[in-house]
Protein backbone atom coordinates (compact mmCIF):
# COMPACT_ATOMS: atom_id res chain seq x y z
CA UNK A 1 0.00 0.00 0.00
CA UNK A 2 1.25 3.45 -0.86
CA UNK A 3 2.43 5.25 2.27
CA UNK A 4 1.75 8.86 3.17
CA UNK A 5 4.79 11.09 2.87
CA UNK A 6 6.29 13.33 5.53
CA UNK A 7 8.23 16.18 3.96
CA UNK A 8 10.37 18.73 5.76
CA UNK A 9 10.76 21.99 3.88
CA UNK A 10 13.92 24.09 3.95
CA UNK A 11 14.07 27.73 2.92
CA UNK A 12 17.43 28.49 1.37
CA UNK A 13 18.86 31.94 0.72
CA UNK A 14 22.20 32.40 -1.02
CA UNK A 15 23.10 28.82 -0.22
CA UNK A 16 22.19 28.95 3.47
CA UNK A 17 19.16 27.62 5.30
CA UNK A 18 17.23 30.50 6.81
CA UNK A 19 14.78 30.23 9.72
CA UNK A 20 17.55 28.62 11.72
CA UNK A 21 17.09 25.21 13.15
CA UNK A 22 17.91 24.16 16.64
CA UNK A 23 19.52 20.77 16.20
CA UNK A 24 22.39 20.52 18.59
CA UNK A 25 23.64 17.47 16.71
CA UNK A 26 24.61 19.56 13.72
CA UNK A 27 27.91 21.30 13.34
CA UNK A 28 26.35 23.95 11.16
CA UNK A 29 22.56 24.19 11.28
CA UNK A 30 22.58 26.61 8.37
CA UNK A 31 24.24 24.20 5.97
CA UNK A 32 21.59 22.76 3.65
CA UNK A 33 23.72 19.71 2.87
CA UNK A 34 24.15 18.83 6.52
CA UNK A 35 20.46 19.38 7.24
CA UNK A 36 19.42 17.30 4.25
CA UNK A 37 21.62 14.44 5.45
CA UNK A 38 20.18 14.77 8.93
CA UNK A 39 16.60 14.48 7.66
CA UNK A 40 17.62 11.59 5.39
CA UNK A 41 18.96 9.64 8.36
CA UNK A 42 15.88 10.57 10.38
CA UNK A 43 13.65 8.91 7.78
CA UNK A 44 12.03 11.85 5.99
CA UNK A 45 10.28 10.63 2.85
CA UNK A 46 11.23 13.52 0.64
CA UNK A 47 12.70 17.02 0.93
CA UNK A 48 11.52 20.32 -0.47
CA UNK A 49 13.90 23.24 -0.89
CA UNK A 50 12.53 26.68 -1.53
CA UNK A 51 15.11 29.09 -2.83
CA UNK A 52 14.28 32.55 -1.55
CA UNK A 53 17.42 34.19 -2.96
CA UNK A 54 16.64 37.48 -4.58
CA UNK A 55 19.59 37.56 -6.97
CA UNK A 56 20.77 35.50 -9.95
CA UNK A 57 23.99 34.74 -8.03
CA UNK A 58 21.94 33.37 -5.17
CA UNK A 59 20.05 31.10 -7.55
CA UNK A 60 23.24 29.91 -9.14
CA UNK A 61 24.36 28.91 -5.66
CA UNK A 62 21.15 26.90 -5.27
CA UNK A 63 22.11 24.65 -8.18
CA UNK A 64 25.45 23.92 -6.46
CA UNK A 65 23.65 23.19 -3.22
CA UNK A 66 21.31 20.73 -4.96
CA UNK A 67 24.27 19.08 -6.60
CA UNK A 68 26.03 18.54 -3.28
CA UNK A 69 22.86 17.32 -1.57
CA UNK A 70 22.13 14.76 -4.28
CA UNK A 71 25.58 13.27 -3.73
CA UNK A 72 24.77 12.44 -0.12
CA UNK A 73 21.07 11.97 0.07
CA UNK A 74 19.25 9.18 -1.76
CA UNK A 75 15.69 10.37 -1.52
CA UNK A 76 13.44 12.51 -3.70
CA UNK A 77 14.29 16.22 -3.81
CA UNK A 78 11.99 19.01 -4.94
CA UNK A 79 13.36 22.47 -5.64
CA UNK A 80 11.26 25.58 -6.02
CA UNK A 81 11.58 29.33 -5.87
CA UNK A 82 12.43 31.68 -8.69
CA UNK A 83 12.14 29.14 -11.51
CA UNK A 84 10.81 31.06 -14.50
CA UNK A 85 11.68 29.00 -17.56
CA UNK A 86 12.33 25.45 -18.67
CA UNK A 87 16.01 26.46 -18.71
CA UNK A 88 15.80 27.19 -14.98
CA UNK A 89 13.99 23.88 -14.48
CA UNK A 90 16.57 21.95 -16.45
CA UNK A 91 19.41 23.45 -14.42
CA UNK A 92 17.88 22.16 -11.18
CA UNK A 93 16.97 18.75 -12.60
CA UNK A 94 20.46 18.29 -13.98
CA UNK A 95 21.90 19.31 -10.63
CA UNK A 96 20.03 16.38 -9.09
CA UNK A 97 16.53 17.61 -8.25
CA UNK A 98 13.77 15.10 -9.02
CA UNK A 99 11.01 17.65 -9.19
CA UNK A 100 10.74 21.38 -9.67
CA UNK A 101 8.04 23.53 -8.12
CA UNK A 102 6.65 26.61 -9.83
CA UNK A 103 4.29 29.12 -8.31
CA UNK A 104 4.08 32.76 -9.48
CA UNK A 105 5.69 32.01 -12.82
CA UNK A 106 3.02 29.39 -13.53
CA UNK A 107 0.24 31.89 -12.88
CA UNK A 108 1.89 34.54 -15.05
CA UNK A 109 2.83 32.06 -17.82
CA UNK A 110 0.74 28.89 -17.54
CA UNK A 111 2.39 27.45 -20.64
CA UNK A 112 5.48 26.97 -18.48
CA UNK A 113 3.68 24.02 -16.91
CA UNK A 114 2.94 22.29 -20.20
CA UNK A 115 6.39 23.08 -21.58
CA UNK A 116 7.99 21.63 -18.47
CA UNK A 117 5.78 18.55 -18.54
CA UNK A 118 6.53 17.99 -22.24
CA UNK A 119 10.27 18.34 -21.76
CA UNK A 120 10.78 16.55 -18.45
CA UNK A 121 7.57 14.60 -17.79
CA UNK A 122 4.61 15.48 -15.59
CA UNK A 123 6.15 13.64 -12.66
CA UNK A 124 8.79 16.40 -12.45
CA UNK A 125 6.40 19.30 -12.39
CA UNK A 126 4.98 20.41 -9.07
CA UNK A 127 2.72 23.43 -9.03
CA UNK A 128 2.78 25.29 -5.73
CA UNK A 129 -0.42 27.13 -4.92
CA UNK A 130 -0.71 29.74 -2.18
CA UNK A 131 -4.37 29.88 -1.21
CA UNK A 132 -6.22 32.43 0.90
CA UNK A 133 -9.79 32.00 2.03
CA UNK A 134 -12.28 34.51 0.64
CA UNK A 135 -14.04 35.59 3.79
CA UNK A 136 -16.84 37.41 1.98
CA UNK A 137 -17.93 34.24 0.21
CA UNK A 138 -20.78 32.22 1.72
CA UNK A 139 -19.60 28.99 0.15
CA UNK A 140 -16.02 28.08 1.09
CA UNK A 141 -13.79 29.60 -1.59
CA UNK A 142 -10.12 30.40 -1.85
CA UNK A 143 -8.10 32.78 -3.99
CA UNK A 144 -4.67 32.17 -5.53
CA UNK A 145 -1.93 34.56 -4.36
CA UNK A 146 1.45 35.05 -5.96
CA UNK A 147 4.78 36.73 -5.16
CA UNK A 148 5.12 34.96 -1.80
CA UNK A 149 1.56 35.77 -0.89
CA UNK A 150 1.88 39.48 -1.64
CA UNK A 151 -0.41 39.71 -4.64
CA UNK A 152 -3.97 38.45 -5.05
CA UNK A 153 -4.77 37.21 -8.52
CA UNK A 154 -8.55 36.92 -8.51
CA UNK A 155 -8.14 33.26 -9.57
CA UNK A 156 -10.20 30.60 -7.81
CA UNK A 157 -8.00 27.94 -6.22
CA UNK A 158 -10.10 24.94 -7.28
CA UNK A 159 -10.35 25.98 -10.91
CA UNK A 160 -6.61 26.80 -10.96
CA UNK A 161 -5.82 23.40 -9.45
CA UNK A 162 -7.83 21.66 -12.17
CA UNK A 163 -6.26 23.81 -14.85
CA UNK A 164 -2.65 23.14 -13.85
CA UNK A 165 -3.29 19.39 -13.79
CA UNK A 166 -4.84 19.69 -17.23
CA UNK A 167 -1.64 21.46 -18.32
CA UNK A 168 0.53 18.64 -17.00
CA UNK A 169 1.32 19.23 -13.33
CA UNK A 170 2.10 15.91 -11.66
CA UNK A 171 1.65 17.08 -8.09
CA UNK A 172 0.31 20.07 -6.16
CA UNK A 173 1.94 21.73 -3.18
CA UNK A 174 -0.94 23.49 -1.50
CA UNK A 175 -0.24 26.13 1.14
CA UNK A 176 -2.94 27.74 3.18
CA UNK A 177 -1.87 31.34 3.76
CA UNK A 178 -4.43 31.65 6.53
CA UNK A 179 -2.98 28.74 8.46
CA UNK A 180 0.70 29.14 7.56
CA UNK A 181 2.91 30.10 10.48
CA UNK A 182 0.19 29.76 13.12
CA UNK A 183 0.83 26.14 14.08
CA UNK A 184 -2.89 25.74 14.70
CA UNK A 185 -3.59 23.08 12.10
CA UNK A 186 -3.82 22.78 8.34
CA UNK A 187 -6.83 24.22 6.51
CA UNK A 188 -8.60 20.89 6.25
CA UNK A 189 -11.49 22.14 4.17
CA UNK A 190 -9.14 23.59 1.57
CA UNK A 191 -6.94 20.51 1.50
CA UNK A 192 -9.89 18.16 1.04
CA UNK A 193 -11.52 20.34 -1.62
CA UNK A 194 -8.35 20.42 -3.73
CA UNK A 195 -7.47 16.78 -3.13
CA UNK A 196 -10.93 15.72 -4.30
CA UNK A 197 -10.80 18.05 -7.30
CA UNK A 198 -7.65 16.64 -8.92
CA UNK A 199 -6.36 13.17 -9.83
CA UNK A 200 -2.73 13.95 -8.88
CA UNK A 201 -1.14 13.82 -5.40
CA UNK A 202 -1.59 16.82 -3.13
CA UNK A 203 0.92 17.93 -0.48
CA UNK A 204 -0.72 19.86 2.36
CA UNK A 205 1.30 22.75 3.74
CA UNK A 206 0.90 25.49 6.30
CA UNK A 207 -0.27 25.24 9.87
CA UNK A 208 1.23 22.09 11.35
CA UNK A 209 1.51 22.49 15.10
CA UNK A 210 0.79 19.05 16.49
CA UNK A 211 0.90 15.48 15.28
CA UNK A 212 -2.89 15.43 15.39
CA UNK A 213 -2.83 18.27 12.82
CA UNK A 214 -0.78 16.10 10.49
CA UNK A 215 -3.10 13.15 11.06
CA UNK A 216 -6.13 15.31 10.23
CA UNK A 217 -4.55 16.68 7.04
CA UNK A 218 -4.03 13.11 5.84
CA UNK A 219 -7.39 11.72 6.97
CA UNK A 220 -9.95 14.53 6.90
CA UNK A 221 -7.97 16.56 4.36
CA UNK A 222 -7.25 13.51 2.17
CA UNK A 223 -3.74 14.79 1.49
CA UNK A 224 -1.17 12.39 0.04
CA UNK A 225 1.69 14.05 1.85
CA UNK A 226 2.30 16.73 4.44
CA UNK A 227 4.94 19.39 4.41
CA UNK A 228 6.12 21.11 7.54
CA UNK A 229 8.97 23.40 8.51
CA UNK A 230 8.89 24.82 12.02
CA UNK A 231 7.80 21.74 13.95
CA UNK A 232 10.66 19.73 12.51
CA UNK A 233 13.32 22.45 12.38
CA UNK A 234 12.76 23.52 15.96
CA UNK A 235 12.77 19.93 17.09
CA UNK A 236 9.22 20.08 18.47
CA UNK A 237 8.70 16.68 16.90
CA UNK A 238 11.21 14.47 15.18
CA UNK A 239 10.42 12.71 11.92
CA UNK A 240 10.61 9.42 13.82
CA UNK A 241 8.11 10.51 16.48
CA UNK A 242 5.77 11.82 13.81
CA UNK A 243 5.87 8.59 11.89
CA UNK A 244 5.41 6.40 14.93
CA UNK A 245 2.39 8.45 15.93
CA UNK A 246 0.79 8.18 12.50
CA UNK A 247 1.59 4.49 12.32
CA UNK A 248 -0.13 3.94 15.67
CA UNK A 249 -3.16 5.81 14.37
CA UNK A 250 -3.38 3.44 11.43
CA UNK A 251 -1.95 5.64 8.67
CA UNK A 252 0.18 3.75 6.13
CA UNK A 253 3.64 5.12 6.73
CA UNK A 254 7.24 4.14 6.00
CA UNK A 255 8.96 3.47 9.31
Amino acid at each position, binding site marked *: *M*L*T*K*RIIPCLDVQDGRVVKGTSFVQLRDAGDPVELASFY*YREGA*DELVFLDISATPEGRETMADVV*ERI*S*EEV*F*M*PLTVGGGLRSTIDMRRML*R*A*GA*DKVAVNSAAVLTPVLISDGADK*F*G*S*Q*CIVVAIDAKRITSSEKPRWEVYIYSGQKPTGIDVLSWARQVVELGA*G*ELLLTSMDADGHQAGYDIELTRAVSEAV*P*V*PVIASGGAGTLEDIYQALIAGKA*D*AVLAASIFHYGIYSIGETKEYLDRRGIPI*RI
Partner: protein
Amino acid sequence: MIVIIDYGAGNLRSVLNAVTRLGYQPRITNSPNEVLNAQAVILPGVGAAADTMESLRRLGLASPIREIIANGRPFFGVCIGLQVLVTGTEEGGWHECLGAIAGTVRKLPSGLKIPHMGWNQVKQRVSHPVFGGIPDGANFYFVHSYYVEPDDESLVAGETDYGIPICSVIATGNLVATQFHPEKSGEFGIKMYSNFLKMAIAGRQD
Protein backbone atom coordinates in the same frame (compact mmCIF):
# COMPACT_ATOMS: atom_id res chain seq x y z
CA MET B 1 33.63 -1.24 -16.79
CA ILE B 2 30.22 -0.35 -15.39
CA VAL B 3 28.27 1.90 -17.71
CA ILE B 4 25.23 4.07 -17.19
CA ILE B 5 23.44 4.78 -20.43
CA ASP B 6 22.91 8.45 -21.20
CA TYR B 7 20.23 8.96 -23.81
CA GLY B 8 19.63 12.61 -23.00
CA ALA B 9 16.94 12.26 -20.38
CA GLY B 10 16.48 10.88 -16.98
CA ASN B 11 17.78 10.89 -13.49
CA LEU B 12 21.28 10.13 -14.57
CA ARG B 13 23.06 12.04 -11.86
CA SER B 14 21.21 10.33 -9.01
CA VAL B 15 22.06 6.90 -10.40
CA LEU B 16 25.66 7.98 -10.91
CA ASN B 17 25.82 9.29 -7.33
CA ALA B 18 24.40 6.06 -5.92
CA VAL B 19 26.85 3.84 -7.80
CA THR B 20 29.76 6.16 -7.01
CA ARG B 21 28.84 6.04 -3.31
CA LEU B 22 29.37 2.30 -3.48
CA GLY B 23 32.96 2.88 -4.51
CA TYR B 24 32.60 2.13 -8.23
CA GLN B 25 33.65 4.44 -11.01
CA PRO B 26 30.89 4.07 -13.56
CA ARG B 27 31.15 5.54 -17.00
CA ILE B 28 28.35 7.54 -18.52
CA THR B 29 27.98 6.70 -22.17
CA ASN B 30 25.82 6.67 -25.25
CA SER B 31 28.28 4.60 -27.24
CA PRO B 32 26.87 1.29 -28.53
CA ASN B 33 30.34 -0.23 -28.35
CA GLU B 34 30.88 0.67 -24.74
CA VAL B 35 27.48 -0.80 -23.91
CA LEU B 36 28.34 -4.03 -25.72
CA ASN B 37 31.66 -4.35 -23.90
CA ALA B 38 30.56 -3.32 -20.43
CA GLN B 39 30.72 -5.57 -17.41
CA ALA B 40 27.41 -4.19 -16.23
CA VAL B 41 24.92 -1.83 -17.83
CA ILE B 42 22.44 0.42 -16.04
CA LEU B 43 19.62 2.04 -17.98
CA PRO B 44 18.02 4.82 -15.92
CA GLY B 45 14.90 6.61 -16.93
CA VAL B 46 12.02 8.89 -16.28
CA GLY B 47 9.35 10.11 -18.68
CA ALA B 48 7.61 8.09 -21.37
CA ALA B 49 8.68 4.71 -22.75
CA ALA B 50 7.98 5.72 -26.36
CA ASP B 51 10.27 8.79 -26.11
CA THR B 52 12.98 6.71 -24.53
CA MET B 53 12.71 4.07 -27.26
CA GLU B 54 12.96 6.80 -29.87
CA SER B 55 16.17 8.10 -28.26
CA LEU B 56 17.65 4.60 -27.90
CA ARG B 57 16.98 3.85 -31.57
CA ARG B 58 18.38 7.17 -32.72
CA LEU B 59 21.59 6.55 -30.78
CA GLY B 60 21.88 3.01 -32.13
CA LEU B 61 21.50 1.59 -28.61
CA ALA B 62 18.38 -0.56 -29.07
CA SER B 63 20.18 -3.53 -30.67
CA PRO B 64 23.17 -3.52 -28.28
CA ILE B 65 20.80 -3.55 -25.29
CA ARG B 66 18.80 -6.43 -26.79
CA GLU B 67 22.03 -8.26 -27.49
CA ILE B 68 23.54 -7.99 -24.01
CA ILE B 69 20.27 -9.10 -22.43
CA ALA B 70 19.96 -12.04 -24.85
CA ASN B 71 23.52 -13.03 -23.94
CA GLY B 72 22.76 -12.95 -20.25
CA ARG B 73 25.07 -10.05 -19.51
CA PRO B 74 24.36 -8.01 -16.37
CA PHE B 75 21.72 -5.35 -17.00
CA PHE B 76 19.75 -3.14 -14.60
CA GLY B 77 16.78 -1.15 -15.91
CA VAL B 78 15.20 1.55 -13.76
CA CYS B 79 11.59 2.73 -14.16
CA ILE B 80 11.35 3.51 -17.89
CA GLY B 81 14.45 1.33 -18.12
CA LEU B 82 12.14 -1.52 -17.10
CA GLN B 83 9.24 -0.49 -19.30
CA VAL B 84 11.27 -0.35 -22.52
CA LEU B 85 12.28 -4.01 -22.06
CA VAL B 86 8.88 -5.42 -22.96
CA THR B 87 7.16 -5.91 -26.31
CA GLY B 88 5.35 -2.60 -26.40
CA THR B 89 3.60 0.19 -24.56
CA GLU B 90 0.05 1.49 -24.62
CA GLU B 91 1.19 4.96 -23.58
CA GLY B 92 0.06 7.46 -26.22
CA GLY B 93 -1.11 4.70 -28.61
CA TRP B 94 0.75 1.46 -29.25
CA HIS B 95 4.53 1.84 -29.47
CA GLU B 96 6.92 -1.01 -29.92
CA CYS B 97 9.63 -1.40 -27.27
CA LEU B 98 12.77 -3.56 -27.10
CA GLY B 99 10.97 -6.88 -26.81
CA ALA B 100 13.64 -8.40 -24.56
CA ILE B 101 10.76 -9.68 -22.42
CA ALA B 102 7.30 -10.56 -23.74
CA GLY B 103 4.87 -8.17 -22.13
CA THR B 104 2.96 -4.91 -22.28
CA VAL B 105 3.17 -1.51 -20.60
CA ARG B 106 -0.33 -0.53 -19.42
CA LYS B 107 -1.85 2.51 -17.74
CA LEU B 108 -2.50 2.25 -14.01
CA PRO B 109 -6.21 1.79 -13.33
CA SER B 110 -8.16 4.93 -12.51
CA GLY B 111 -9.59 5.47 -9.06
CA LEU B 112 -6.30 6.05 -7.30
CA LYS B 113 -4.04 9.08 -7.65
CA ILE B 114 -1.94 9.03 -10.81
CA PRO B 115 1.06 9.19 -10.89
CA HIS B 116 1.62 6.49 -8.29
CA MET B 117 4.05 8.66 -6.33
CA GLY B 118 5.76 7.83 -3.08
CA TRP B 119 7.06 4.92 -1.01
CA ASN B 120 5.39 1.55 -1.37
CA GLN B 121 6.22 -2.00 -0.32
CA VAL B 122 7.84 -4.59 -2.54
CA LYS B 123 6.78 -8.15 -1.87
CA GLN B 124 9.53 -10.53 -2.93
CA ARG B 125 8.07 -13.43 -4.91
CA VAL B 126 11.33 -15.15 -5.70
CA SER B 127 14.68 -15.56 -4.09
CA HIS B 128 17.29 -13.66 -6.08
CA PRO B 129 20.70 -12.25 -5.07
CA VAL B 130 19.51 -8.72 -5.84
CA PHE B 131 17.23 -8.93 -2.78
CA GLY B 132 20.14 -9.91 -0.50
CA GLY B 133 19.93 -8.12 2.86
CA ILE B 134 16.66 -6.42 1.93
CA PRO B 135 13.64 -7.40 4.04
CA ASP B 136 10.54 -8.67 2.28
CA GLY B 137 8.04 -5.81 2.17
CA ALA B 138 10.68 -3.05 2.32
CA ASN B 139 9.58 0.34 0.97
CA PHE B 140 10.90 1.81 -2.26
CA TYR B 141 10.19 5.11 -4.02
CA PHE B 142 7.86 4.97 -7.01
CA VAL B 143 6.80 7.58 -9.49
CA HIS B 144 5.00 6.31 -12.58
CA SER B 145 1.65 6.28 -14.36
CA TYR B 146 2.18 3.10 -16.41
CA TYR B 147 3.27 -0.36 -15.33
CA VAL B 148 4.67 -3.49 -16.90
CA GLU B 149 2.67 -6.67 -17.34
CA PRO B 150 4.96 -9.54 -18.43
CA ASP B 151 3.21 -12.33 -20.38
CA ASP B 152 5.04 -14.86 -18.24
CA GLU B 153 3.86 -14.10 -14.74
CA SER B 154 6.68 -16.12 -13.22
CA LEU B 155 9.03 -13.33 -14.28
CA VAL B 156 7.52 -11.08 -11.59
CA ALA B 157 10.17 -11.13 -8.87
CA GLY B 158 8.75 -8.28 -6.84
CA GLU B 159 5.16 -7.18 -6.56
CA THR B 160 3.60 -3.98 -5.24
CA ASP B 161 0.00 -3.18 -4.45
CA TYR B 162 -1.49 -0.05 -5.96
CA GLY B 163 -5.14 -0.92 -6.27
CA ILE B 164 -3.99 -3.89 -8.31
CA PRO B 165 -0.82 -5.94 -7.86
CA ILE B 166 1.82 -4.45 -10.12
CA CYS B 167 5.12 -5.90 -11.21
CA SER B 168 7.74 -3.83 -9.40
CA VAL B 169 10.81 -6.02 -9.96
CA ILE B 170 11.93 -8.38 -12.69
CA ALA B 171 14.97 -10.40 -11.71
CA THR B 172 16.02 -13.36 -13.76
CA GLY B 173 19.65 -14.35 -13.96
CA ASN B 174 21.70 -11.24 -14.70
CA LEU B 175 18.68 -9.22 -15.82
CA VAL B 176 17.27 -6.96 -13.13
CA ALA B 177 14.74 -4.18 -13.62
CA THR B 178 12.68 -2.16 -11.18
CA GLN B 179 9.64 0.05 -11.56
CA PHE B 180 10.76 2.09 -8.55
CA HIS B 181 13.88 4.22 -8.28
CA PRO B 182 16.54 2.49 -6.14
CA GLU B 183 18.66 5.66 -6.27
CA LYS B 184 15.82 7.50 -4.49
CA SER B 185 14.92 4.70 -2.11
CA GLY B 186 17.37 5.27 0.71
CA GLU B 187 19.73 2.59 1.95
CA PHE B 188 17.72 -0.40 0.67
CA GLY B 189 17.82 1.11 -2.80
CA ILE B 190 21.58 1.53 -2.63
CA LYS B 191 21.77 -2.07 -1.40
CA MET B 192 20.01 -3.26 -4.57
CA TYR B 193 22.63 -1.59 -6.75
CA SER B 194 25.32 -3.03 -4.53
CA ASN B 195 23.88 -6.55 -4.83
CA PHE B 196 23.54 -6.23 -8.58
CA LEU B 197 27.05 -4.91 -9.11
CA LYS B 198 28.61 -7.55 -6.87
CA MET B 199 26.73 -10.20 -8.82
CA ALA B 200 27.83 -8.64 -12.13
CA ILE B 201 31.47 -8.45 -11.17
CA ALA B 202 31.64 -11.88 -9.55
CA GLY B 203 30.20 -13.44 -12.66
CA ARG B 204 32.39 -11.66 -15.17
CA GLN B 205 33.73 -13.62 -18.10
CA ASP B 206 36.94 -11.71 -18.78
